């Protein structure tokens, strides 16, 4: 029977089977498993049926804990039910997983295995999450490749129904979940053949039903619990045979044969690696290579890890085995060994001690090692190093491979040049930008080659840690043999460089093998390209005899209306020069792919792409290569020489893409990193940057306020401070009454700017001669770069405006002068969140402690290599930490509790040492008014005096009896300066997963400030709906348009009566925003600010984000208000509406946003109905708020 050959990634493969074989699906987004839920939601929205002809019910939950609970309920009520998750999400499911297993309930959870957050979060892949769930009583089946994901999803589903033991179907996050592979698609008939309908009905028959009532979930006592727990044993004992039998049936049906432990290698192997997950494929590939070169090695691929069948494992080993290395993709600190290693040892040990179980295999040595944590590369070179280690008389146990451990010396050395790539495989690397469409084109190329030729195809994509100006590197393999290389290409025979600017920063030819083809997108004529290349590139081209092709793709894109999308142009070039397909056929296939990809977006888009393809080949040239080096250009250093040592030695290596080479000793052991590192990473990603016109500028500060990346700053300085100003440094007379004799300057960090244009859009000052030009306007960056760098450096050296110089920092105009302590983050260009975050940093950053929920703000706030939280000239700045997604409010409350306790203790010590300190200082410290900047400054000075005094007393013999309280007070004195606790996160946290905690923390009455950056979706994971998503908006998990209205979080919290609540939108009323932030912080109790944050996931022109904020308010959708409980004490209404009645229709606001518009384009009737309902609700809510404001 022939089955369709498709090119999909692991997530789609798993979701396909899961969707077909389930009735209820509970979902929640978490990287890297989110796409499985997205597929399920999309298929359900499209009305696609499952095996039984009904459309599965897909329900998004508020957390993974919620998803597991819903699954548990659905299972107990007799449905086939599943979910998808990873990492922390799996941890949240564990309590329910114990229950589901304890009740012997059939289900499969599909897991894109991911690293757990420990010293740091990591989105990448390893087995630490699933290993944390190994005690739950679930069977664990590991798929090693995309094909196996599809196969094992079905095998697991069939086996769970038969065994009644629930299954975790595990595959490696990113490496498998996101790897695109050509695979054979299982058919519905395959699924029907494997899934026993009687077992489905039996599952249903075990369900709760009032027609045949029973109870399940009793509380048991010491008398019976133990025995009942043991009663399930027969079910677990049966699992291995059931799985094997299912695999055998699958093999008969489909032709692919699997075993619980699959051995590959020499029948007489002496050295064997035991491993599970995608790394097993690389090991198998290496084993084949080594055996072909005279070695005797093998690999045992563990499929069913739980229940661990010792007998099956032992049987899988070749009798000749002498040495075994067990590789675990996780770390269990303090354990005797990692989980798989322990199981293998146990199996071998039990065989040794139980004569009846003895096997032929009797290895002399078994060692365990760790590899591949957080998607660390696992290559044939490392695998060979493990085999080499096994050959030693006393191999290293508890080793690591793939890193250099210069602390405990656990690591195995390996030869990085060892390579086993097959010469008949095309290995292509593409360097591109997210914005240029490189990855999308490559995914299409894989489809073309995979589905239209007999070749096998594989694609894996490496993305940036930044959301703006993101670099992508695509690794594509095509060849006549199945591809098992689960690692990046290290020897390429084709390298495409889609961005000329990359030559400044990256050595992209290292991976080129001799004779490789290099394809360039160059803004130069072919005869000038050679001279423009940097010297190291010329050297490699000559040394490796590389062939060079070039095209000015941006020019072709410009001429064909493609803008910055050079994807189809470069794709056409790839096919033309790589020869993977005949040219004409390739072009026909590219056009077919364009039609398929873009057809539904309209003929104009298709036509534009066609024209780009047609215009390409005439502009593609081979570059003549001279026989000598002509360039003197070299790579720019990743960081400037004045950067601090840690940045030079560690951060710079990461920026340069050499983080893999950093030894263990270079990294902090506890996850503590220095602040203020983003300033050293000059990314130069903007094509255009803002330029200031001092003659037009009114010095309002709006551009400074809205700049998401803190690249526009202003200072007011004495004229004499500018005496040594560099040429062209612009200043104007300061337009402040209080500072009339001073000079004002506004500067742009051109190397850090993302070119978002928000500043230009908000600038209210227009040139009187040229109305289209404002006080801030955009100009090409490249010509401004050098001078801009000089000006910026000079600007930074100018004195900051003192925080207590008489100016009240209560308005936008004055606040622009406060140094931002959040700068140059990796947020999207034009981000709507970061202006609020920056404002917090300006107003309170020098005394702020920040708890940050996982999400966009934790990623642009804390993702290495460089981080944006910064320090002021005195070395003070926000102290920032991220705990988890779900616990952020509680995490922040803990900080508050600690500070309150420390305050209590410090003040008690001040009282106790009053005689030593002096009553005046003690009273001043204890009674200090810290409600103003001047008050805080005075307290800082008192604390400095106190510390100096205490240090002095500490040394005096007379004070010896008081040494302990003196030392304690010294360690705590800093908390006598008022601390500002901020709890920051997005709507996914505040409205959904963290809502319970948020409610509790706000209700606690403690002095915390909560800032909700409300983008109305889970932005960081790609725009899934949250309870903040508005009625009628399309989002992932709400593909048919959200059918329920947004939760009114502010209103709910106002009900408590003692919580300060404000709803703000900077673009609509920046003065109200500032007022709300100041009031919230000054309120000695809980405060909540809900901030409208426009977002890339809204589908808007990000440059007009602030306009959208204004329209949101003007339409009444987003009323601005403040609820200040202090006003009640003054006999006033605590609720103040800060905006006028709706003056534009909701339609006028929403139709600027693709999230709404696309529903009108896809389901106009539904969209109109939801809009009418939404408009009605907006007006009703407005009326309710008006009544509140009227008291």
């Amino acid at each position, binding site marked *: 029977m022939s089955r369709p050959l498709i090119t999909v990634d692991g997530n789609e493969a798993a979701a396909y089977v899961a969707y077909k074989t389930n009735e209820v699906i509970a979902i929640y987004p978490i990287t890297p498993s989110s*796409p499985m839920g997205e597929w399920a939601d999309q298929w359900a929205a499209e009305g696609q049926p499952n095996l039984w002809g009904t459309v599965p019910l897909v329900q998004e939950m508020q957390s993974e804990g919620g998803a597991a609970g819903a699954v548990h309920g659905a299972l107990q009520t007799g449905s086939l039910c599943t979910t998808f998750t990873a990492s922390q999400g799996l941890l949240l499911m564990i309590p329910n997983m114990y229950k589901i297993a304890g009740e012997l309930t059939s289900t499969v959870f599909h897991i894109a295995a991911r690293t757990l957050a420990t010293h740091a979060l990591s989105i990448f892949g390893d087995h630490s999450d699933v290993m944390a769930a190994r005690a739950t009583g679930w069977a664990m089946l590991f798929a090693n490749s995309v094909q196996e994901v599809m196969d094992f999803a079905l095998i697991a589903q069939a086996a769970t129904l038969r065994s009644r033991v629930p299954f975790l179907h595990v595959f490696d996050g990113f490496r498998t979940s996101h790897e695109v592979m050509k695979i054979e698609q299982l058919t519905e008939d395959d699924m029907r053949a494997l899934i026993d309908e009687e077992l489905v009905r039996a599952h249903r028959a075990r369900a709760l039903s009032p027609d045949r009532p029973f109870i399940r979930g009793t509380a048991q006592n010491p008398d019976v619990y133990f025995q009942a727990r043991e009663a399930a044993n027969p079910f677990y004992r049966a699992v291995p045979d059931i799985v094997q039998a299912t695999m055998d049936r699958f093999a008969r049906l489909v032709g692919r044969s699997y075993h619980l432990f699959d051995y590959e290698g020499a029948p007489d192997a002496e050295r064997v690696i035991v491993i599970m997950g995608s790394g097993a494929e690389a090991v198998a590939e290496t084993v084949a290579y080594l055996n072909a070169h005279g070695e005797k090695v093998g690999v045992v691929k563990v499929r069913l890890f739980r229940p661990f069948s010792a007998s099956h494992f032992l049987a899988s080993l070749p009798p000749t085995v002498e040495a075994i290395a067990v590789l675990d993709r996780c770390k269990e600190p303090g354990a005797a060994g990692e989980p798989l290693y322990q199981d293998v040892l146990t199996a071998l040990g039990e065989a040794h001690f139980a004569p009846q179980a003895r096997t032929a295999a009797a290895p002399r040595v078994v060692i365990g090692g760790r590899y591949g944590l957080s998607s660390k590369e696992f290559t044939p070179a490392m695998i060979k190093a493990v085999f080499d280690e096994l050959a030693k008389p006393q191999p290293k146990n508890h080793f690591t491979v793939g890193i250099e451990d210069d602390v405990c010396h656990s690591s195995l050395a390996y030869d990085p040049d060892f390579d086993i790539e097959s010469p008949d495989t095309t290995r292509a690397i593409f360097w591109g930008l997210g914005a240029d469409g490189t990855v999308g084109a490559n995914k299409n190329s894989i489809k073309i080659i995979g589905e239209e030729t007999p070749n096998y195809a594989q694609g894996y994509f490496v993305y*940036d840690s*930044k959301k703006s100006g993101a670099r*992508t590197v695509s690794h594509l393999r095509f060849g006549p043999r199945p591809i098992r290389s689960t690692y990046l290409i290290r020897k390429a025979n084709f390298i495409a460089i889609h961005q000329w600017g990359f030559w400044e920063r990256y050595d992209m030819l290292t991976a080129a093998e001799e004779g490789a083809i290099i394809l360039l997108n160059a803004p130069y004529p072919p005869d000038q390209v050679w001279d423009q290349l940097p010297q190291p590139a010329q050297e490699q081209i000559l040394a490796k005899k590389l062939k060079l092709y070039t095209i000015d793709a941006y020019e072709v894109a410009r001429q064909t209306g493609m803008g910055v999308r050079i994807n189809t142009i470069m794709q056409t070039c790839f096919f033309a020069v790589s020869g993977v397909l005949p040219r004409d056929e390739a072009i026909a296939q590219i056009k077919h792919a364009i039609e398929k990809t873009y057809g*539904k*977006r*309209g003929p104009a888009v298709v036509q534009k792409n066609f024209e780009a393809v047609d215009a390409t080949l005439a502009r593609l040239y081979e570059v003549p290569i001279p026989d000598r080096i002509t360039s003197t250009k070299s790579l720019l250093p990743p960081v400037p020489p004045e950067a601090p040592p840690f940045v030079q030695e560690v951060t710079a290596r990461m920026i340069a893409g050499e983080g893999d080479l950093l030894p263990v000793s270079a990294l902090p052991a506890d996850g503590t990193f220095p602040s203020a590192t983003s300033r050293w990473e000059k990314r130069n990603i903007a094509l255009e940057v803002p330029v200031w016109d001092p003659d037009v500028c009114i010095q309002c500060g709006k551009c400074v306020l809205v700049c998401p990346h803190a690249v526009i700053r202003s200072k007011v300085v004495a004229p004499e401070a500018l005496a040594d100003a560099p040429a062209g440094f612009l200043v104007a007379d300061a337009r402040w009454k209080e500072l009339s004799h001073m000079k004002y300057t506004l500067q742009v960090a051109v190397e850090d700017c993302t070119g978002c244009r928000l500043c230009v859009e908000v600038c209210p000052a227009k040139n009187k001669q040229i109305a289209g030009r404002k006080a801030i306007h955009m100009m090409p960056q490249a010509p401004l770069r050098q001078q801009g760098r000089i000006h910026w450096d000079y600007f930074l050296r100018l004195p900051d405006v003192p925080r207590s110089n008489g100016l009240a920092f209560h308005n936008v105009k004055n606040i622009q002068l406060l140094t931002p302590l959040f700068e140059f983050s990796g947020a999207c260009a034009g981000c709507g969140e970061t202006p609020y975050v920056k404002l917090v940093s300006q107003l309170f950053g020098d005394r702020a402690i920040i708890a940050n929920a996982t999400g966009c703000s934790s990623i642009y706030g804390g993702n290495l290599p460089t981080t944006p939280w910064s320090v002021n000239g005195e070395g003070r700045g926000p102290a920032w930490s991220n705990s988890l997604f779900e616990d952020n409010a509680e995490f922040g409350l803990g900080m508050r509790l600690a500070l309150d306790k420390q305050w209590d203790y410090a003040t008690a010590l001040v009282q106790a040492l009053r005689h030593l300190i002096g009553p005046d200082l003690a009273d001043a410290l204890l009674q200090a008014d810290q409600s103003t900047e001047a008050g805080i400054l005075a307290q800082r000075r008192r604390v400095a005096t106190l510390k100096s005094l205490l240090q002095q007393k500490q040394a005096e013999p007379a004070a010896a009896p008081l040494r302990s309280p003196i030392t304690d007070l010294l360690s705590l004195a800093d908390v006598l300066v008022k601390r500002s606790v901020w709890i920051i996160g997005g709507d996914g946290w505040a409205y959904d997963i963290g809502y319970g905690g948020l409610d509790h923390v706000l209700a606690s009455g403690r002095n915390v400030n909560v800032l909700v950056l409300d983008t109305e979706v889970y932005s960081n994971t790609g725009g899934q709906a949250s309870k903040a998503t508005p009625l009628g908006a399309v989002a992932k998990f709400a593909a048919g348009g959200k059918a329920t209205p947004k939760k009114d979080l502010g209103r709910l919290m106002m009900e408590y009566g003692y919580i300060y609540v404000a709803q703000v939108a900077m673009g609509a009323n920046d003065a109200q925003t500032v007022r709300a932030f100041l009031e919230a912080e000054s309120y000695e109790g809980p405060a909540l600010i809900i901030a409208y944050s426009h977002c890339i*996931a809204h589908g808007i022109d990000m440059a007009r984000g602030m306009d959208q904020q204004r329209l949101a308010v003007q339409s009444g959708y987003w009323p601005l208000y403040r609820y200040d409980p202090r006003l009640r004490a003054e006999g006033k209404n605590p609720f103040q509406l800060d905006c006028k009645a709706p003056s534009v229709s909701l339609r006028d606001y929403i139709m600027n946003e693709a999230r709404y518009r696309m529903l009108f384009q896809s389901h106009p009737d539904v969209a109109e109905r939801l809009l009418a309902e939404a408009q009605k609700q907006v007006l009703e809510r407005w009326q309710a708020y008006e009544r509140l404001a009227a008291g």
Partner: protein
Amino acid sequence: MPDLSTHYLGLHLRNPIIASSSPLSYTLDGIRRLEDAGCGAVVLCSLFEEQINLESELLDHYLTYGTESFSEALSYFPDLGRYNVGPGEYLELIRRAKAAVDIPIIGSLNGVSTGGWIEYARNIQEAGADALELNIYYIPTDPAMTGAAVEEMYLNVVRDVRRTVHIPIAVKISPYFSATANMCYRLVAAGADGLVLFNRFYQPDFDLERLEVVPHLVLSTPFAMRLPLRWIAILYGRIKTDFALTSGVHTYTDVIKAIMAGANVVMMASELLAHGVRRVGEILDEMRQWMEEHEYESVAQMRGSMSQIHVAEPAAFERANYMKVLGSWRPDPTGMAPY
């Protein structure tokens, strides 16, 4: 009872009032209301190729923007499978309108590319439109472009569409040609079955507070019909084609004047938008009454009766007319206001 029926583009109309392209004909309900109100035919809102392209490109842009850049968010929207970014919705409106009403349905098309004009014209015909109005406008801002080149562009569109469809074609043009009469003649020669005079453009305005150019649409005033009235009067009988007068038709007298000038039909939008579609019935009643009072039997009888070739003073439609109007103008018609 006077006979109000007329012929336009080979179609028999129960009366000469056609609802011209406006928001009133955006929906099936709107079209039904126009029929119920008494309209002789309906010109649907224009299918703008440029708008279709723009919507298509916007959709593509926002579905693509920010994608495949960051590991955790490789896209930001679900794939909804299909989007009505092409002409599908418009064509469906034609199909549904044809099934729902008895009066002729005239499609309207504004293209930007040769391919677009041809393809969409064919689509509109296939959807069942009784006729097609080509809404051609082009603002020639390029100083290097000659009037002849602009005219040739218009003619090519008509020729291309004529070759593509068999349903009648009307061409709606602007008055901004050096030789309007010649242009009209050549359009008919190129294959137009009728001419719609004249198109009105959105004229930009300035917002002085924001120093921005803002699009500005004002509803037509009765004065606006003078220009097409004049040209139809001039062209009637000289060019063998049907005429539709559009712009500034607000009252029954406007309709009568248009027909007397030589128009087969008038097109109305502003009056209906401002005062409701019931105005059609009122105007028809008033028109009948006037015709009865003035003993006109039919629209056909009136048609062209005051065209240039039929009036006593043909020169009144030419330059002297301008001079005469100026000469008859007084700042205050009462003559009583002090200077």
